[in-house]
């Protein structure tokens, strides 16, 4: 793992006692218990389940905005872990393999209805694998 990667926050999925894994985390899982562990998805590859290109975007959001639901198949985890995120390109198909790439700012924090300090605005886009 490079130093640059270590400086980035993780793409963290949460493990629960019932064996389920989910992204993002919740205070309690659907089993009613707190998470028991985490899995960093940064170095994993995923598959596009479905995607869209949004052309009517809110203030502060890039236009067009390519979005996808992707699925991570993890060793020792029965059910694939899904995540939603921006795509680096709209030139994709369902089933394409992708990898997470870090972005410092996914949208302008100071333009939308939410308070800019209310949440983090960095995260991971998904880039098709060559």
């Amino acid at each position: 793992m490079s130093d640059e990667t270590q400086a980035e926050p993780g793409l963290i999925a949460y493990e629960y006692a019932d064996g389920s894994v989910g992204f993002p985390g919740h205070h309690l899982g659907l089993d009613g218990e707190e998470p028991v562990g985490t899995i960093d998805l940064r170095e994993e590859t995923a598959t596009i389940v479905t995607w869209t290109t949004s052309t009517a975007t809110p203030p502060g959001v890039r236009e067009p905005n390519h979005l996808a639901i992707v699925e991570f198949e993890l060793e020792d985890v029965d059910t694939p872990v899904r995540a939603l995120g921006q795509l680096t390109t709209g030139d994709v198909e369902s089933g394409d393999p992708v990898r997470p790439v870090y972005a410092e700012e996914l949208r302008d924090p100071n333009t939308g209805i939410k308070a800019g300090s209310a949440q983090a605005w960095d995260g991971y886009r998904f880039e098709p694998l060559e």
Partner: protein
Amino acid sequence: METDRVAIIGASMTNFGQREAWIRDLLAEAGIACLEDSGVEPEAIDHCYVSNMSSGEFEGQGGIMNMLAHDLGLLPAYTQRVDQTSSSGGAGIYAAWQSIASGASEMTLLVGGEKMTHRTTGESTDIIASITHPDEYKHGVTLPSFAGMTARHYLERFDAPRESLAKVAVKNHKNGVDNPHAQFRKEVDLETVLESPIVADPLRLYDFCPITDGSAALLFCPESVAESYTDEYAIVSGIAGATDTHVVHERPDPTVMNGVVESGQAAYELSGYGPDDIDVAELHDMFTILEFLQMEGLGFAAQGTAWELVEDGVTDRDTGRLPINTSGGLKSKGHPLGASGVAQGVEIYEQLTNTAGPRQVDAEVGLCCNVGGFGNCVITTIMEAAQ
């Protein structure tokens, strides 16, 4: 002892569309019309619920339930604002039903409303998108983009033709022509829908409901009280609400809205009716794909086959065995967030009391399904005509 059933004895809705009125006057317009429709005096109201999603965000106006109670001379009636995002109207029906069924109120007025069109499309989209999880919101997710992703998955997985979604829009616009309160009273053809601008591919402009101002109202009381006002009323036979994951991608199957399934099953159980008993339905067609998902979740069609019913004309108003969205739906009638679920109830009430005019179908039992967020919370209501 037989339980007194919950009746609806009055209904009204304002014109939906781009209105000069702000939220205060929209709510009052529908509330007064509903009282006049039923012949009930304001001092008879025990409870008053106001369904509204975001008057604070859209207009900067809070406390709208207190405002309405005073404006309509309802004091000292109990009042409460009901927010359940896009299903605020359905949640208002649930609250009103509970107030009567519990005996806490003998006369409950429900008014739902929203003022939206003074905002730009981008601003309105952002206010609505703010209901999403922070990890979704930061990616610029909008409700239409969820619809686009879900529609693509549905079409690919079930090999459904893109045209079948467009036919939902064509059908609902056709129905809306006969609704004097609808935002769009204009038919659209298949070619127009399929060639309209892309909003969230594969969905295009005509796959989406408009941004709308408007208000709607219903009046509830025990059946024993209803009979002293009118012979023409509707009964709330069953109602239930349910939730699904807040984070949309965490659902095991993107084409199943479990809130629809769970609320539908519970409403069927309470009413004693099943999917085959429903004569007319108002479904939450905020996006055309949602009409398919609700038809399947409510048991009108097996998973992945709702599009076939639309292709076969089963849901057509004048010739189908299960007319869906005779009002024009959110698609044509408009979607003033907090009003929409109430307006669904207005349409079913009118169908069951034979007051739907040119939209009238032969119906004894009707259903409305009001979806909040992208299936985050759902209210299903089943009504029947008074016997």
